[in-house]
């Protein structure tokens, strides 16, 4: 009878230190993505957008023609978008969260369609010369974008969207001359108010 060979423990697999570090960082990122809401909604950025909307409203209210009024607001929309992208990227970077993966991608994909629809409807209404509905429609569609994107974010974000929708609904049934006032209340007031809340409670 041959004596049994002593059991040999399997040779440990050697992994370079940097590979282990990279693997740990990958694990952290995946766990954060699974666990996290999209928390890179920028509070201070939102507040800055609100103040730029107040400036736009002051300028727009003095324009002699509807075409120039709409031009001011379109410039403001472009400026707001640039501010939003920069401050979202900055906040995500500070939190070491990837911008377009997990909740961030879902947020962007849910936020974008109502904004695209808003741009198309604006073009159509402008072509037909019917600008009366624009303030209400813009508030409603922005609110819809914030509610749907906000379902992947912290609770205060969809709440902000609901407030925009309520304001948009009120604008639709109000006299057209109140349009600029609704724009000030929504894109200025609500944006500043919720921007401050987000900045205070969710880290900037």
């Amino acid at each position: 009878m041959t004596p049994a060979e002593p059991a040999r423990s399997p040779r440990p697999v050697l992994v370079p230190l940097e590979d282990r570090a990279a693997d740990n960082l990958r694990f952290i990122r995946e766990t954060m993505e699974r666990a996290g809401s999209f928390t890179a909604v920028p509070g201070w950025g939102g507040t800055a957008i609100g103040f730029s909307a107040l400036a736009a409203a002051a300028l727009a209210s003095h324009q002699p023609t509807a075409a120039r009024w709409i031009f001011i607001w379109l410039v403001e929309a472009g400026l707001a978008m640039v501010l939003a992208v920069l401050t979202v990227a900055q906040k995500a970077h500070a939190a070491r969260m990837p911008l377009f993966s997990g909740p961030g991608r879902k947020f962007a994909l849910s936020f974008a369609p109502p904004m695209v629809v808003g741009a198309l409807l604006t073009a159509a209404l402008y072509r037909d010369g019917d600008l009366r509905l624009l303030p209400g429609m813009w508030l409603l569609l922005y609110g819809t974008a914030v509610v749907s994107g906000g379902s992947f974010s912290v609770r205060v974000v969809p709440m902000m969207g609901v407030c925009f929708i309520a304001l948009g609904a009120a604008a639709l049934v109000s006299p057209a001359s109140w349009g600029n006032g609704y724009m000030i209340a929504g894109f200025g007031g609500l944006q500043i108010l919720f921007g401050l809340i987000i900045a205070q409670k969710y880290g900037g």
Partner: protein
Amino acid sequence: MRAKLGSATAERISKSHPQGPRLAALRGRAQEAVAPGLDRLIHERMRLGIVSALAVNPSLTFNELKALLRTTDGNLSVHARKLEEAAYINCTKMFDGRLPKTKYRLTAAGRRAFERYLDHMESLIRAARET
């Protein structure tokens, strides 16, 4: 050995460690075991998962963490207690109706430790790229 490590990595290791990649990898493991600044408490996978999840949430319940990390009650409570003892997380017990509920939060010390750990991992990767 070279095939196992991958040729690029093996080449990088053999350049900086002429004794051979195996010795370098062993040295790496030894360095990791005693590396100053490496927080062994967070380094363990389950505890790293708990801290990572709490870093992106104001608080999480025991059941939320358990589902997220796909672990057992016993495993989670052992690791959570270690983090609690180190004051990296705090634990609040409450009742939701008749059901007991345990909630965890990352403390300021825990967040600092987590950030230190991230910096440490990044510096290891950076150092390896520079060699």
